[in-house]
C-alpha cells in the first residue's frame, strides 16, 4: 500500500513538520527555564509516528512512553494542551500534574504515556482486551523502544496478547540507545528484536523507520491484518535520536556515540526523504509543502502563546484527584 491518497500524503507531511518544528521550538525555549520538567525530544524519530497517523482512527487506542510527544501529536493530540502541560499549566492536557512524560488526549484515543520504561505495554494490551471482549473492530497501539523489550513485562504482555489473539500493534522504534547505554551492552550481539519476538508467537515486520513510505506500507498492512482478526503484530522500525536522552541539547561530545554515527543517521532523516519522494513522484509541489509547513508553524506559535499565557493550576488544588469520586 503506497501512500496513494493526497489527503494522507498531506497529513503525513503535516505531522512530520509538526513534530519536528514543535520539538525544535521546545529545544529553543527550554533554556528559558519555564518548562520545568524532564523532557525527551523526538527529533529524528518523526517518521514512524507520522507514517502510522493515517492508519488509525480516533476510536483506535494508543499508549506511549517517556518519549511520547511525537506519538501524541501523530495520534491527533492537541498541540496547545501538550505545550501547556510541559509548562505545568492548568490548561495542560494533564492539568499540570503530569508534565512532558504524562500526556493524554482521550478525545483522539491517546490513552496516556508514562515515565517508567515498559509501564504502558500491558496497559495497551489491556485496552486491546477490552476491545476484544466488547467485540469492537478497533485496535490498540503500544509504542515501545528497544529498551522496553528488555523489560520482563514486555514478554508478559506480548505473551498474553498472543495467547488471546488480541488486536494490538506493538510499534518498536529501535533507536539503538537506552539513555546512554548502547544496544551492544544490553542485548546479545546479532540479535534482531523482531526475530526474537516472532519466537513468542507474534507476527512481525521490520524495516527502515526513517523511510516514511515503506514504514507506512508495513504499518498499514499490520493495522489491516489486525483488523482482519490476525492477532497481535510487532513492527520493528529503525530510527535515531538526534538530541540528548533528556533535554534540549546535542550530546555527541559525551562520547557514548560517535559524531560519525550521528552524521550518518542525520543524512537518513525522514522528512527530507519524504519530501524528495513526493517531488520525485510529482505528488506535491514545493509551494504546497511550504504552505503546509507555514500553517504548522502558526499552530506551534499559537500553542506557545497559549501555554505561556495560561495560569498555573492553583496551589489550593494540590490534593484534588487523589481519589476518584463515587462508584457505580
Amino acid at each position, binding site marked *: 500500500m503506497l501512500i496513494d491518497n493526497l489527503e494522507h500524503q498531506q497529513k503525513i507531511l503535516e505531522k512530520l513538520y509538526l513534530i519536528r518544528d514543535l520539538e525544535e521550538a521546545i529545544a529553543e525555549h527550554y533554556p528559558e527555564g519555564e518548562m520545568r520538567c524532564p523532557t525527551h525530544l523526538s527529533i529524528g524519530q518523526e517518521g514512524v509516528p507520522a507514517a502510522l497517523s493515517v492508519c488509525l482512527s480516533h476510536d483506535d487506542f494508543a499508549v506511549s512512553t517517556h518519549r511520547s510527544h511525537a506519538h501524541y501529536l501523530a495520534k491527533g493530540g492537541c498541540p496547545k494542551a501538550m505545550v501547556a502541560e510541559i509548562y505545568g499549566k492548568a490548561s495542560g492536557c494533564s492539568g499540570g500534574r503530569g508534565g512532558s512524560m504524562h500526556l493524554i488526549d482521550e478525545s483522539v484515543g491517546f490513552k496516556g504515556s508514562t515515565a517508567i520504561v515498559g*509501564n504502558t505495554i500491558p496497559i495497551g494490551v489491556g485496552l486491546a482486551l477490552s476491545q476484544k471482549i466488547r467485540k469492537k473492530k478497533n485496535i490498540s497501539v503500544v509504542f515501545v523502544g528497544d529498551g522496553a523489550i528488555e523489560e520482563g513485562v514486555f514478554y508478559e504482555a506480548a505473551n498474553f496478547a498472543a495467547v488471546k489473539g488480541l488486536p494490538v500493534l506493538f510499534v518498536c522504534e529501535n533507536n539503538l540507545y537506552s539513555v546512554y547505554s548502547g544496544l551492544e551492552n544490553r542485548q546479545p550481539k546479532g540479535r534482531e528484536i523482531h526475530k526474537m519476538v516472532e519466537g513468542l508467537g507474534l507476527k512481525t515486520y521490520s524495516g527502515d523507520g526513517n523511510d516514511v513510505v515503506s514504514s507506512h506500507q508495513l504499518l498499514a498492512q499490520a493495522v489491516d491484518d489486525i483488523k482482519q482478526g490476525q492477532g497481535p503484530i510487532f513492527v520493528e522500525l529503525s530510527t535515531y535520536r538526534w538530541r540528548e536522552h533528556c533535554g534540549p541539547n546535542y550530546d555527541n561530545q559525551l562520547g557514548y556515540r560517535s559524531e560519525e554515527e550521528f552524521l550518518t543517521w542525520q543524512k537518513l532523516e525522514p522528512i527530507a526523504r519524504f519530501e524528495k519522494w513526493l517531488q520525485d513522484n510529482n505528488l506535491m509541489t514545493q509551494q504546497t509543502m511550504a504552505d503546509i509547513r507555514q500553517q504548522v508553524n502558526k499552530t506551534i506559535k499559537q500553542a506557545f502563546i497559549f501555554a505561556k499565557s495560561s495560569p498555573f493550576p492553583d496551589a489550593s488544588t494540590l490534593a484534588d484527584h487523589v*481519589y476518584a469520586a463515587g462508584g457505580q
Partner: protein
Amino acid sequence: MLEQELMFTEAINEAMFAAMEQSDDVLCYGLGVDDPLRIFQTTKGLVEKFPERVFDMPTAENGMTGIGVGVALAGMRPVMVHQRLDFFLLAFDQLVNSAAKWHYMFNGQRSVPITIRLIIGRGWGQGPTHAQNLHALFAHIPGLKVVMPTTPQDAKQMLLESIFDNNPVVFLEHRWLHNQTGMVEENHCLNESNYLPMHKARVVEEGEDITIVSMSYLTIEAMRAIEALKSQGINAELIDLRSIKPIDWETIENSVDKTGRLLVLDTGATTGSVAGEIVAHISENKFSALKSAPKRLAMPDIPEPTSYGLTKNYYFGAKEIAEHAHYIIKNVEVIDLYQGLIREGHHDVPGAYFKGPF
C-alpha cells in the same frame, strides 16, 4: 431482611456472582480462577455462567496487573485474584506507578476501578514468602484503597463495594477467615440505609475501659480476649478497622474520647505498621484524652519461619491481647490469668479441620 449462614469463601463467591450479574463490565481473572479448586471455592461456578469474562492467566503478575489497568481505563471493572499476596509483589510497578497514580497524574480524567484480591497465608509452614501481611505497604501509597474484611457479611458487601468503587482497591483476605461462618444478607443492594460503608470501621462491642482496634483475623482473637476481660471486670470497646486506607479516624477518636486508653492490634510487622500509624495519630490528636500510653501489639520484625517448632511463639492471640489490655488498665503484669485463652490443638492451624496444604 433475608439472611443465610455462609462461610467467608461462600460470601466472596456470592459477591462475585452478584457483581457479574449486575454489570457486563465486571471481569474476573487470576491464576486458577477456573481450575478444579477455584481459589478455595471463591470462584466456583463463575466461568460456567460468565465464560467470556472469567479467565485463567499466564503466571505474569506484573503484566497481568497492567492488563487489568488497561481494561479498567476502557471502563471495565476487573477483579484480579492471587492465592497468596506474596506473588503480587511482582506487580508493584503496575500497582504503584499505574493503578494508584493514573487518576491523579492525568488530572482526574480517568480512574482505574480495579479490585485486587490477595489472600494472606498463615501457619502450616507457609513460611517467609507465603504469609506476609503487607497492608501497611499498600496503605503507604496515595491513591490506593486497602480493605481487610473480617466477617462473611463484610466480605460480601465490601467486595461488592470494592468492585463498584471507581478507585483501585486492594482487598485482603486472611486465609484463617476463609472457613469462618456468619449470617449474610441475601440482598446485596449497596444503598440500604443500614449498611456500613466500606470506609467505616465497625464497633464490634461497646465498652468504657479501653479501646481495642483490630483488623482481619485478629478481630476473631480480640473477640475472645474481650470476653475474658469482662470476667475481670474490664469492658473493652472493640473496633474492627475494616478499611486500612483510608482509616476511619472519627470512630477511633470517638472511642478514645470515651475510654482514654488504646491498644491497637496488627497482623503485620511492627516497624511502619498501621498500628503504629494509629498510635501516632491518637497521640498527636487525642493526647489530652489519654489516661495511659497507647500501645501497639503487632508482629515482630521477623519473617514467618516455616518449621512447626519455630512458629510456636511467633504469633500472638487472645491471651496476649487480654494481658496487654489488662496491663494498660491495671498497670500490673498478670501471670496465668488468661491461660484459658490459649487455643487447644496445633498452634499452626485455624482449626482441626485444616489439613493444609495452603
